[in-house]
């Protein structure tokens, strides 16, 4: 698989140079700057001359009720949407795994929410969930499930539910692809054997498929949680103006840009990063496996 090359072959690093440069310029350096800013009183207009204020920003954050609310919102979204997406994604993956006519079309259809820009999905759902003119209220009224229109976006609790709903709609396709890949890597004869033996599908699912799929399920859930914890676009557009649904990323950007308070905004971003690193540690054994697969 590999060509002969000594460990010090300059060619390797020559080819890698543009990539490393980009990673350093776009990710490494800005990240270091944000870490630095989080210990300062930097403002957007004055990023050069800042004074070091130690842990002041972190102390402010620990006492900031709004931040605690944002953290709570973020974790609520992660804890509810990720398992929902996993269950729905599994259903979709099981369907796509079956060989049937029109499977190609079904795959394309399932991918549509994934391809739609998050901003556009937020707008589409915002329109559908509109309290006065929205189709969802209308359909629910017609079916007599509700008696009066529901304020899906304006109400504090419901808007969080709406965000979770749209997030589930948008990210289930990706989840189902991850799980489909997992299903395809299982020994296929166990599916056939179960079918021939006349074992019921439910039994097969819980006794055979799920135990075999467990590593994939765990990895996909961590993977999705790592993504969901930084949720920004959907919240920013779907419930703009409603502070009750602010998430950590939205809160960080509000301080960084809207209030031009780069010092405190950076602190919020670094704490978010800390949560991600913590989740990432759970993911670490999988990192290693992934690296080994490239040997």
């Amino acid at each position: 698989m590999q060509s002969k090359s000594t460990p010090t072959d300059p060619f390797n690093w020559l080819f890698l140079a543009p990539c490393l440069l980009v990673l350093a310029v776009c990710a490494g350096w800005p990240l270091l700057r944000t870490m630095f800013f989080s210990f300062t009183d930097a403002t957007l207009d004055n990023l050069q001359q800042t004074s070091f204020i130690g842990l002041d920003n972190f102390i402010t954050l620990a006492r900031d009720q709004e931040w605690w609310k944002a953290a709570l919102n973020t974790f609520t979204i992660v804890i509810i949407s990720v398992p929902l997406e996993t269950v729905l994604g599994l259903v979709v993956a099981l369907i796509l795994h079956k060989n049937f006519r029109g499977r190609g079309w079904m795959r394309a259809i399932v991918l549509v929410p994934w391809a739609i820009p998050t901003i556009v999905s937020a707008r589409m759902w915002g329109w559908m969930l509109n309290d006065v003119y929205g189709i969802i209220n209308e359909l629910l009224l017609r079916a007599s499930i509700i008696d009066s229109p529901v304020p899906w976006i304006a109400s504090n609790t419901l808007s969080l539910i709406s965000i979770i709903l749209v997030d589930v709609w948008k990210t289930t396709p990706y989840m189902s692809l991850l799980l489909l890949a997992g299903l395809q890597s299982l020994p296929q004869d166990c599916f056939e054997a179960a079918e021939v033996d006349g074992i019921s599908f439910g039994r097969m699912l819980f006794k055979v498929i799920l135990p075999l799929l467990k590593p994939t399920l765990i990895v996909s859930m961590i993977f999705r949680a790592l993504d969901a914890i930084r949720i920004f676009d959907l919240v920013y557009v779907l419930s703009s103006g409603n502070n009750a649904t602010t998430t950590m990323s939205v809160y960080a950007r509000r301080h960084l840009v809207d209030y031009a308070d780069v010092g405190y905004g950076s602190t919020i971003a670094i704490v978010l990063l800390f949560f991600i690193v913590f989740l990432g540690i759970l993911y670490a054994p999988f990192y290693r496996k992934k690296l080994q697969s490239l040997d």
Partner: protein
Amino acid sequence: MKNLDNKWKYKRFAKELIFLVACLIIAAWSLFPFYWAVVSSLRASSDLFSTDLIPSSITIENYKYIFNDESFGASFWNSVVVATLTALATLIICLLAAYPLARCRFVGRKRVLMIALCVTTLPHVAVLSGLFEMIRFFDIYNEKSALILAYMIITVPFTLWVMTNFMNGIPKEIEEAAIMDGATRYVILTKIFLPVLKPAVVTTGLLAFIAAWNEFLFALTFTLTNQARTVPVSIALFSGASQHELPYGLIMAASVVVTLPLVVLVVIFQRRIISGLTAGSLKG
């Protein structure tokens, strides 16, 4: 015996029916919001609040308005340029980098792959201020190049992994024969690997294009004027006379215009997109 046969047939039929219904529900759930956006965008403004599932009359006035609107035209063009250039730059950078990562074993190789993987999980707000400072330093604030620079953080690590994966799968005999003939690394990459990797290049290029096309946070932060915005930002900032009078007909028309190219790409390339997405994440 016949009875049993019938029972079996009946059971099979019921199973297939349940499967079909499940497919239909999933299709409706996936497609309805887009369908509703299309329907709403085709309604006359007097008819916008109708909740008929199938419109009785359609008009393209919203689309006419959108395409005559100068700032929407500008943002559409910006999105096309930014997404295309981001995808091209990402492909060149990652093709070069994937070669040593996939074909050679050298000290630091794993570290590079690990760093790339970590960057994919970085929260984008954590690089916002540093990037902003850099963009101001290069004096490219409110310009397309600022967005292309920022988007690299999203597209490069992912593409690097997928490309390394695909390149890892090329049989070594091909490369060895070329080395025997005295071909340089650069020639091997461009003349021998590139043709083999064509499907991978299409897949990763497409994924990078879609990621850049859909990006919002950086585009919102690093542009200021209507002329410099990308489509997601102009759709997000579309506003009417007041908060409660959003011009939904226009917003839906704009939404359909940005989404349609992606839906077409997905229908054509679904197989490749799926293989790329899974290769970049799970299959290792």
